[in-house]
């Protein structure tokens, strides 16, 4: 019976040292890149069927469902940008933009208010919370998150930044406005809101750490996340994507704290988007793992 090999080994003729190996899809990416330098590996998509799913870097050639000859179909994914770059840009924007409104930089409000500060202490608190949130996100991007895909299409950065920066400006305009009205229930409301906000920030961070620890550095394995010793992760019992649950909670807290309609709108839009993502993630967990816990919902315990 003919044995088929999908492995090519190139050895140095004199020393017999292994120079390179052709056994994974990733090797094909490199090969195409040398022939077509404009198509760096991140923007290459290779699949067995023109309309099929892209093959992954680490897929082993030998395991592909092909016969003695293999035909691959190539598609250019377009200019790519790294996730890290996108995250840093889209989070740095709101941080800086909000501060511009907080410090009442000229040309935003009437000239007599330039560089003045709000007389409401909740406005200072809100600035601290908002800034803390985005600093946390920036640090997580740099030190915590492990990304499964290195890149995304370049046009995403314009779309994402418009969203984050636009909403940040819209919210910040009203919160830091000279005619801002503090929450109706005053200190009680603000205190409760702050507790909710901080609780959810810690929760969100705990989940990010738990997810990071699921995956050893450099690996792309996927495992079911479970509750750890940290009580903030016990929510994994009920929810697939508690990072989104906590994120929603944070913004609900911020909405309560500022009593500002644009903040509520931002919370709502974010919630809709995160629900879509959570449902997708939940579905892929179910598809990938037979023994996936049945009690879990995508984002809201028992509800959604």
């Amino acid at each position: 019976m003919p044995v088929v090999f999908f492995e090519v080994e190139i050895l140095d003729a004199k020393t017999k040292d292994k120079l390179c190996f052709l056994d994974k899809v990733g090797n094909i990416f490199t090969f195409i890149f040398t022939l077509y330098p404009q198509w760096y590996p991140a923007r290459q998509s290779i699949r067995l069927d023109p309309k099929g799913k892209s093959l992954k870097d680490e897929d082993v050639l030998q395991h592909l469902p092909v016969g003695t000859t293999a035909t691959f179909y190539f598609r250019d994914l377009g200019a790519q940008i790294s996730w890290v770059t996108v995250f840093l840009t889209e989070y740095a924007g709101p941080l800086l933009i909000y501060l511009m409104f907080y410090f009442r930089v000229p040309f935003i409000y009437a000239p007599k208010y330039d560089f003045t500060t709000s007389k409401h202490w909740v406005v200072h608190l809100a600035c601290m919370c908002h800034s803390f949130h985005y600093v946390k996100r920036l640090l997580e991007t740099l030190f915590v998150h492990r990304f499964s895909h290195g890149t995304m299409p370049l046009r995403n950065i314009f779309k994402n930044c418009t969203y984050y920066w636009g909403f940040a400006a819209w919210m910040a305009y009203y919160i830091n406005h000279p005619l801002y009205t503090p929450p109706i229930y005053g200190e009680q409301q603000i205190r409760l809101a702050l507790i909710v906000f901080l609780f959810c920030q810690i929760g969100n961070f705990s989940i990010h750490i738990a997810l990071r620890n699921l995956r050893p550095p450099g690996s792309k394995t996927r495992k079911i996340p479970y509750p750890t010793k940290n009580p903030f992760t016990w929510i994994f019992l009920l929810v697939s994507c508690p990072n989104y649950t906590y994120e929603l909670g944070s913004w609900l807290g911020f909405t309560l704290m500022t009593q500002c309609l644009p903040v509520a709108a931002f919370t709502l839009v974010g919630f809709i988007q995160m629900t879509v993502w959570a449902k997708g993630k939940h579905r892929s967990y179910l598809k990938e793992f037979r023994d996936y816990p049945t009690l879990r919902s995508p984002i809201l315990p028992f509800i959604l």
Partner: protein
Amino acid sequence: MSAPAMGTSKTAHSDSSNKKKKGPGTLATAYLVIYNVVMTAGWLVIAVGLVRAYLARGSYHGLYYSIEKPLKFFQTGALLEILHCAVGIVPSSVVLTGFQVMSRVFLTWAVTHSVREVQSEDSVLLFVVAWTVTEIIRYSFYTFSLLNHLPYLIKWARYTFFIVLYPMGVAGELLTIYAALPYVQKTGLYSITLPNKYNFSFDYHTFLILVMVSYIPLFPQLYFHMMRQRKKVLGHVEEYSKVE
């Protein structure tokens, strides 16, 4: 500008791709035929109403009032078309259809109905006439397409009349919004000012100006899209005449 799956003028190549055309079922088709017939009739009523009022008064002025109610009813009824796309019985984009219908509904209710002073403007007549002719052709196009008996005349009209009607409608719409501006500013219509407990503000006057500005990028795109569709749909006729 959406055409249902059946009777579209896609050139029939024998596809090697196994694309199963998921058109509407028989019940859905029956419903859509009724919907499109009713809409055609509705806009015909508006057309007849306009003609009769013009003949009775002898002038173009103030014809809006003679067809105000059916205009509101049938233009608002078009919201159902968004539902048709969402449910899948019409193969158009929900977003695109939603956008088109909402812009009409916006002009009908949030501008013309809300700002009484513009109702006697001639610009209103301009877009009402454009809409009326367009919709009569469009809905009869869909009706005939669904029944698989599309007269070439209707197809031709659908992809030709827009050349004049589209700019005419846009001109009427823009002039109407422009006419509404001073009244909106004076009365603060639909506007919220600070301070208030929701920490939110909205200036309808500025919003209307932004709407007018948005026509600049949007109108050419839609217009040239229809032009391209026209070449694709009616194109083969020209080829025949060249051969002769």
